[in-house]
């Protein structure tokens, strides 16, 4: 009964949000979508829809922030990738091996990599145990090939997990119209560059209300943390 009530509530709210969006009433649609968040619902589709509302309202920083949140949950989602590509196109690494590896990693989410890591670690632990026991007791089992395969699977899982985990910990987006990157953690320092809304990069270090950040361009600087937001907040 409760399930049916919740389902009805969701379908009703969803219709309302969609209708508002279709009418061009984006702030109303956003309010409806945010009700899902209040209920603790998190999904790539929800983040996409919230990002779309912000986009239509001209709030591109927030828009990209939500697209990125959706991307973290479902990196292969074509709609999310399309919308992110409206903001920036990350250039492929000139090293073909790294580029190939990054492409594979980008198709698998952090959640899947987490499961991979658990499974691969368990398999590796079993393979290592068998191999150890073989040293003191004769067991007729091909432990070495198993160990090799499990090791490869574990390394792949660990690398993928590390890349995604690093992104979770460091990725941020400028949410104000513009911000300024300084050479130090204060406005008194030299102004290095002006950074537009919806620029993104990775966080290196925090110092009070200031972030030392890297931009995609390879440049870096200190920005006021109130002008940007972490894609995955603490």
């Amino acid at each position, binding site marked *: 009964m409760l399930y049916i009530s919740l389902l009805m509530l*969701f379908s009703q*709210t969803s219709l309302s949000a969609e209708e508002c969006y279709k009418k*061009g009433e984006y702030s109303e649609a956003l309010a409806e979508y945010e009700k899902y968040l209040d209920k603790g*619902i998190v999904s790539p589709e*929800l983040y996409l*829809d919230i990002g779309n509302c912000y986009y239509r309202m001209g709030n591109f920083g927030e828009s990209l922030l939500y697209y990125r949140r959706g991307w973290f949950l479902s990196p292969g989602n074509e*709609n999310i990738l399309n919308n992110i590509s409206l903001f920036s196109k990350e250039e492929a690494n000139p090293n073909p091996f790294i580029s190939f590896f990054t492409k594979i990693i980008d198709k698998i989410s952090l959640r899947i990599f987490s499961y991979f890591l658990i499974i691969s*670690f368990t398999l590796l632990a079993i393979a290592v145990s068998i191999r150890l026991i073989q040293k*003191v007791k004769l067991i007729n089992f091909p432990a070495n090939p198993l160990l090799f395969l499990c090791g490869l699977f574990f390394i792949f899982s660990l690398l993928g997990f590390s890349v995604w985990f690093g992104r979770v910990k460091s990725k941020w987006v400028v949410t104000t119209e513009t911000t300024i990157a300084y050479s130090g953690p204060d406005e008194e320092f030299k102004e290095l560059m002006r950074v537009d809304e919806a620029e993104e990069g990775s966080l290196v270090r925090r110092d009070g209300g200031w972030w030392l950040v890297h931009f995609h361009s390879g440049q870096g600087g200190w920005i006021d943390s109130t002008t940007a937001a972490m894609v995955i907040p603490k």
Partner: protein
Amino acid sequence: MVILLFFSLTFTASIDRTTVPVGESFNVSVIIEGDELSGIGEPEAPGIPGIQILGSSRSQSTQINFINGKLTKSTSLTFDYQMIANSEGEYTIPPFSLKYGGQHYETEPIKISVKKGVPRRNVPPPAVYEDRETRTGEFRNVFLDSDISKSSVYPGEPLVVSQFLYTKVNLGDIQLTSSPSYENVWVENVESPTRLDFSRATINGIAYQRALLKRDILFPLGEKDIKINPITINVLIRGDMFSFFGERKEISSETRTILVKPFPPGRLAEFIDAVGKFEIRADMDSSNLKVDSPFPLRLIVKGEGNISLMSAPKFPETRKLTTYDPESKVSSQVSGSTLKGERTFTYLITPKVSGIIEIPEIKWAYFDIKNETFVTRTIGPWQVRVKPSSEMGGEGETAKINKDISYVLPINGKTVSLMPKFFPLYFLPSILILLISGYYVLEARKIQGDRGYANMKVIPRELKNGFRKLEKEIAGNNPVQFYEDLTRLLLKFIKLKFHMESFGMKKIDIISELRDKKVPEQILPLLQELLERSETVRFTSLKLEKKEMTGDLKTAKEVINALY
């Protein structure tokens, strides 16, 4: 130029320019003209304070004309003085004087203004005339020359080039065989007369008839020097006494090069290649704007200069607005030595979002020739209200992938987590497996490598099993089996603990060897007694009570504990 007439002799002085830069030479020509000049000497040059005479040259020409059936002869003697001023100021060249035929002749003083500036480079004086003089003398009476308004220019700065035909003789059937051509410039034609209109002009004190062939305004493209290629005419020269019916000749001008200076430092990123003086205004219809519906923003640049060559001011990129390269229209007209008019750049701007949107200010810069500096101007910003598009948000939006944002997706109420809950806990079983297998391997290795350690590991199990068995024997009231098992347990314990081959040894030897191993002395009689009793019971089938067997088991445990 000043002319003094005394009878049939003309004594004049002229200067090639009235304003010269410091350090640049100029020419003062003193010309004596008359019917008969035989025996005439050089005029006396005055001392000129602040001006140095670099040198002088003398030339003479005689002209015989046959005009309207009448033969006339005139002689012209020219003294050219090359001078130079080394500092700025206003100078007056005093009169040159001449004594001839008992008469004293004087020219008028000539004023010259010397100003600070860059000396001209590669700009020959009206050299065609001189060249002809110093070569064969052929056609010196007819030549082509360019009158150029400036000796050096900045890229884009206009200059006027007038191509003239000079003649001292009658000409007929003038045909232009090679039109004026230029290199590294944009050309705007000012004047191309269809009929030659001759007027009097003096070069180096010599009077010519001059007709304009063509006048252009040139705008340098880039920083390469301007090259003015020769023009050629084919002309019939008439009236010469040696060729009465005239002679057809081809005459060319000289190649001229004009220096194009680089811009001074301080060139701005917003510079739109405009050189001159300009103003800008904007025109925009901002009513009823809708998302994805383009509207025009017109920037109208008005002024004088290279209006045809300037590029469009850069529209600042923004994600709320998109635009394409603007269309441009120009309307200009020649005014004096430059172009005046306006150029309209039309930007088609497409709003991508609804609401109040700011069109950012547009920065642009031009080069002010007069002050030789870059001037920056801004226009905007503007705020416009954009309504949502009526087409937006429909089902068709799904198909806009790669063009616009993707359509909203239905929410099914499922929650997708970033990572599994209690993620680290999933690793505990694997860690446990590793720990257990590691411990097992370590133990196994130790047991395999250390016999004593292995025995020590076995004794508790052996004792436990042995005692359990003995208790069963007591419960079953089976004294023979009990003492047999007790003997085996004691001997096995001694064997494992003390590495003695106890099963094949006599009791006395066992006690003796244990004594040697410094075991507690008081326990040995008990051990001996237990072994002896066991032997007695086994071989005599002595009937014993459970109580006695329990007592012996207790003694056995005390002995083992003491020896362990």
